[in-house]
């Protein structure tokens, strides 16, 4: 939140999370979840000051190339191999309000579907000019954008022939720690989306569709890069008007 803004920060508790909209913890089709899923009921807690607050990150954190994955790991004068794309959109909350100042971190495989990670064993080649990480912070209207290459699909050890569709991972901070979210963006028209055991942990088809970014022809940069639009929705929060006053307020 900018110091120049005289808007009072919101302090209401967040809307109850719709757990049926998200994947359940135990999804046997995604085998790793079997031993990593809590089995007991979660303890419900209406947000306290510990969850309605959260860390903020200033724009001064960002380096010039943080939102340019084509160049932020590349040697001077070189660039990552792959289809050049712009990913942009807005971070909103469930009330449709923009979330300014939200830190987004993203990571992805290279154009051949290979991650730059020591635990990665896929035989596709590394791109010496592609690291695979980037970050940005949303503007006052909740908008963000970054440049990258379209990641490749890749096989992974789950079923004998399971593949991940092309995707970009997103980590998002809102204004309260209860809004913390990690998700993945998929690409319009990819037939592999519906075959993926991780995608289909999400039970509702329209929830899955919320993670598929459409090609945004209008924002495509001629002779340079196609654009995909990916809006992200974080939890909304209640008005504090009718809330009990907290000690010290």
């Amino acid at each position: 939140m900018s110091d120049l803004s005289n808007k009072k920060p919101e302090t209401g508790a967040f809307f109850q999370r719709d757990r049926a909209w998200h994947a359940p913890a135990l999804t046997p089709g995604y085998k790793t979840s079997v031993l990593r899923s809590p089995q007991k009921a979660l303890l419900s807690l209406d947000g306290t000051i510990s969850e309605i607050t959260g860390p903020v990150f200033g724009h001064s954190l960002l380096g010039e190339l943080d939102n340019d994955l084509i160049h932020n790991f590349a040697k001077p004068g070189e660039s990552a191999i792959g289809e050049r794309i712009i990913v942009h959109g807005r971070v909103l909350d469930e009330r449709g309000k923009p979330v300014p100042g939200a830190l987004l971190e993203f990571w992805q495989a290279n154009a051949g579907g290979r991650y730059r990670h020591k635990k990665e064993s896929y035989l596709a080649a590394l791109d010496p000019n592609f690291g695979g990480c980037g970050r940005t912070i949303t503007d006052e209207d909740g908008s963000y954008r970054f440049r990258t290459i379209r990641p490749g699909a890749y096989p992974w050890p789950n079923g004998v022939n399971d593949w991940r569709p092309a995707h970009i991972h997103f980590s998002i901070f809102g204004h309260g720690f209860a809004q913390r979210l990690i998700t993945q963006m998929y690409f319009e028209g990819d037939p592999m989306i519906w075959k993926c055991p991780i995608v289909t942990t999400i039970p509702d088809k329209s929830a899955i569709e919320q993670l598929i970014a459409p090609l945004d022809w209008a924002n495509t940069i001629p002779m340079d890069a196609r654009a995909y639009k990916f809006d992200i929705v974080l939890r909304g929060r209640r008005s504090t008007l009718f809330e009990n006053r907290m000690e010290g307020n």
Partner: protein
Amino acid sequence: MVQDLGYLKESPSQTAGPYVHIGCTPNFAGITGVYETDLGTTMVNDKTLGERIIVRGRVIDGAGVPLKDALVEIWQADAAGLYNSPSELRGTADPNFTGWGRCPTGAEDGVFTFETIKPGRAPYKDGSRMAPHITVWIVARGINIGLHTRMYFGDEQQANAEDPLLARIEHRHRVATLVAPRDGSVYTFDIHLQGEKETVFLDI
């Protein structure tokens, strides 16, 4: 027909996957030169007020094996019980304390470590005081939606006995899953994803 409430749905969570380090702690993952440091590595500096402590633990799966690919984040109040956040309206938190930390579990031993300070007490909604605690969030491959929990302090028995969240845990033997024992300046907080010792996770 009635008016449409017009609310949006929260974007569905997806697992952080095995390569979460590339995005969140790239230097730890060996991707150097993009960011100077990994975010959340340092919470304190020389001027931070409060008692210096170390929080250390593991995230343990249903087979008793520590996760070596998890990412743990913590969020806590400063020594006076204030959060370093714009939504903190009770006062100004210690500017030398971020309140937020992030640590991957070790690739060899599965251990996470935070160098921080012991937080003060913050108010519950009804004005009573919560015991000092640290909010903890865990993501990893195989975890479809980030897990929220809290760590309380083993040497705060009196405060813990008054804590409104701990009081709501129906099966009293499970309270211990949220209380980290102290040894010197080190608190050990092992998080069990499943089984008899399953940590109490929160829907917040």
